[in-house]
C-alpha cells in the first residue's frame, strides 16, 4: 500500500516536472502585461488579438502545412525504405542505417547552411525548399519508428496469406499495413513534432516572406515574446491534447478488439 502511494507520488512529481513549464506558458497567455517577467492582471485580450494578427495566423498556416505535408511525404518514403532495408542483407542494412543516422548527428546550423548552399544552385528558396529540408530530417525518424515494428512482426501471417492465394499487394495492404500502423503513426507524429519545433534549418532554407511559428518566436526572443504567441501555444496544446485523447480512445478500443480476437 505504502509502495503504491510512493509510486503514485513519484509519477506525480515527474509529471509536475514535465508540466510546470507548460503551466507557466499557459499562465503567461492570460497575463495583462506585455513583459513576461511581470504579472499585472488577468486578461483574455491576447486570445482575441491572436486571431487578428495576420503574421501569426499566416505563420501558423505555413507551420501546419509544412509539418503535415513533410511528415506525410517522409512517411511514404520512409515506409518504403524501411520495408526495403528490412529485407536487405546485413552489410547493406548497416550501410543504409549509417546514412539514415547522419541527419540526426549533424548540428542543425551545419545542416541548415549546407542545404542552403546546395538548394541555391537549382531551386529558388521558398516554401518548397523548406519542405524538402524538413522531409530530409523527418525520414530518419519515420524509418527508426517503423523498423523495430517490422522486426517484431510475425512474417508468417503474410506468407500464409500469400499461400492462400492473395497477391502480394493485397497481402501487404491487408496483413502488413495494419500491423505497421502504430509504427507509421508514431513516425508520422514524431516527424510532425520535429518539423514544428525546427528553427535553424527552416531559417536558412526558407524563402522571402515565408515564416513559421518557430522563426517568428526566434525573432521575438530578443525584443520579448509577444503574448499572442503564448495564447497560440496554449490553444495548440489543448487542441493536440484533445486530438490525442480521441485518437487514443479510438485505437485503444481497436486494441481491445484485436486482443479479443
Amino acid at each position, binding site marked *: 500500500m505504502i509502495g503504491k502511494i510512493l509510486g503514485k507520488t513519484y509519477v506525480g512529481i515527474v509529471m509536475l516536472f514535465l508540466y510546470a513549464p507548460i503551466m507557466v506558458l499557459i499562465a503567461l497567455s492570460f497575463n495583462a502585461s506585455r513583459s513576461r*517577467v511581470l504579472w499585472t492582471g488577468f486578461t483574455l485580450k491576447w486570445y482575441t488579438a491572436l486571431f487578428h494578427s495576420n*503574421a501569426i495566423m499566416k505563420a501558423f498556416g505555413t507551420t501546419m502545412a509544412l509539418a503535415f505535408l513533410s511528415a*506525410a511525404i517522409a512517411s511514404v518514403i520512409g515506409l518504403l525504405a524501411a520495408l526495403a532495408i528490412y529485407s536487405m542483407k546485413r552489410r547493406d542494412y548497416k550501410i543504409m542505417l549509417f546514412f539514415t543516422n547522419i541527419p540526426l548527428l549533424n548540428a542543425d546550423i551545419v545542416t541548415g547552411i549546407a542545404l542552403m548552399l546546395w538548394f*541555391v544552385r537549382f531551386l529558388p528558396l521558398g516554401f*518548397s525548399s523548406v519542405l524538402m529540408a524538413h522531409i530530409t530530417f523527418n525520414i530518419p525518424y519515420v524509418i527508426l519508428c517503423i523498423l523495430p515494428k517490422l522486426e517484431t512482426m510475425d512474417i508468417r501471417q503474410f506468407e500464409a496469406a500469400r499461400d492462400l492465394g492473395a497477391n502480394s499487394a493485397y497481402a501487404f495492404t491487408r496483413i502488413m499495413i495494419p500491423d505497421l500502423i502504430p509504427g507509421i503513426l508514431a513516425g508520422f507524429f514524431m516527424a510532425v513534432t520535429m518539423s514544428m519545433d525546427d528553427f535553424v534549418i527552416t531559417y*536558412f532554407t526558407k524563402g522571402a516572406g515565408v515564416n513559421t511559428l518557430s522563426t517568428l518566436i*526566434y525573432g521575438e526572443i530578443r525584443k520579448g515574446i509577444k503574448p499572442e504567441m503564448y495564447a497560440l501555444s496554449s490553444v495548440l496544446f489543448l487542441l493536440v491534447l484533445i486530438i490525442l485523447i480521441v485518437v487514443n480512445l479510438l485505437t485503444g478500443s481497436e486494441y481491445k478488439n484485436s486482443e479479443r480476437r
Partner: protein
Amino acid sequence: MKKTITIILLIAMICTLSGCKGSSSGGSLTVFNYSEYLDPEMIAKFTEETGIEIKYEEATTPEELYTKYSSGAISYDLLCTSDYMVKRLIDEGQAQEIDFSSLENYKNIDPKFEKLSESFDPGNKYSLPYFWGTVGILYNTKMVKEPVDSWDVLFSGDYSGQIIMQDSMRDSFMVALKYLGYSLNTKNEEEIKDAAALLKKQKSDVSSYLVDEARDEVVAENAVMAVVYSGEAYLGNEYNPDLAYVVPKEGSNLWIDSWIVTKNCKNTDAARKFLDFLCREDVASANFEYIYYSTPNKAAVDAMDEELRSNPAVVPTDDSIKNCEVYEAFDEKTNALYNELWKEIKSQ
C-alpha cells in the same frame, strides 16, 4: 498505395510550382531587416498606398543577415543593418548609390547624421539612417546607492553576480576598452589584450552574457545592472520605474542602423518610394512607437510629447554622445585576434 504516392507527389509539385512564381512580378520589393524593427502595419500601409508588394525578411544579428544575404539564396532589394556591416557591404560593392535629392522626405532626417555616418559611408552616398542610439548601463536605482556615471561599477566587484554583460564580442570589448581609456576601434595588440585580461577577471562577477533579453532580467530584478542598447532602456523603465539609464562618462559606442539599396535591386523606383515612405513623419513616428529606439527623423522627434523628447534614452543628448565613437570594421588579422580572445573569455 500507388495512388497515395501519386497524390502526395502531386501536392508536392503544386507546392514547388507555387513556391517559384511571384518573384518576378513587377511591383514587389524584397526587404531584409532586423526582427521586430518595423511596424508591420506600416508595410501594409505602404502596399496600400503604392500598390508595391513587400516581401519582408528578418534576421536577429548583422552576421546572420550577412550570411543569408551573401549566399545569394534570395535576391534582396533593400536591407537595413548596422554601421560596420553597412561598411562591409559597401566595400564589397553590394550597395547602390541612393539619389537622396529625389527623396522628398529626406529633409526630415537630422543633418548631423551625415557627419556621424561618414565613418562607414564616406560621402553619404549609400546609406539612409533608420534608428540609432548608444550603449550604456541600465541599472536599478533602488539597489545601487551611489550615482552611476562610469563603467567602473561593472569592474569594481561591488555588484558581483548581479551584472549582465552584452553577449557580443564588439560590445563587451567596447566596455573594457573605453574603461581603460582606449579607442573602441583600437588595433593595438597590447590594448586589446589589456581589455581581454580585464574582461576575464570580470567574468566571475558577471551573472550572465545576454543580448536584448538583458532588459527583462533587470526588470525582474534578477540582476542589478546590465549593459544595454539605449533603445531597451525606455521600455525597461516603463515596466519597472526604478530603472535608470546612463551613458558612462568615459564614452561608449554610438551605433547607427541604416538602409542600403543592394546592387541587385532592379526596381530602384520602388526602392526609392519605400525609403521616402520610411522618412515620412507619420511612418517614422509609428515605427518609433513600435520599438522606442531613437529615431534620426527630426520631424518625428519634434512630434513627440515633451516627456519623451527629454528622455535621454529616447533622444540621446549631444553631451552624452560627445565621447562616443562609431564602430569601424576591423581588418582580418585584428578581427581574428578579437574573436580568439572573446572565445577564451567566454569559455573560461
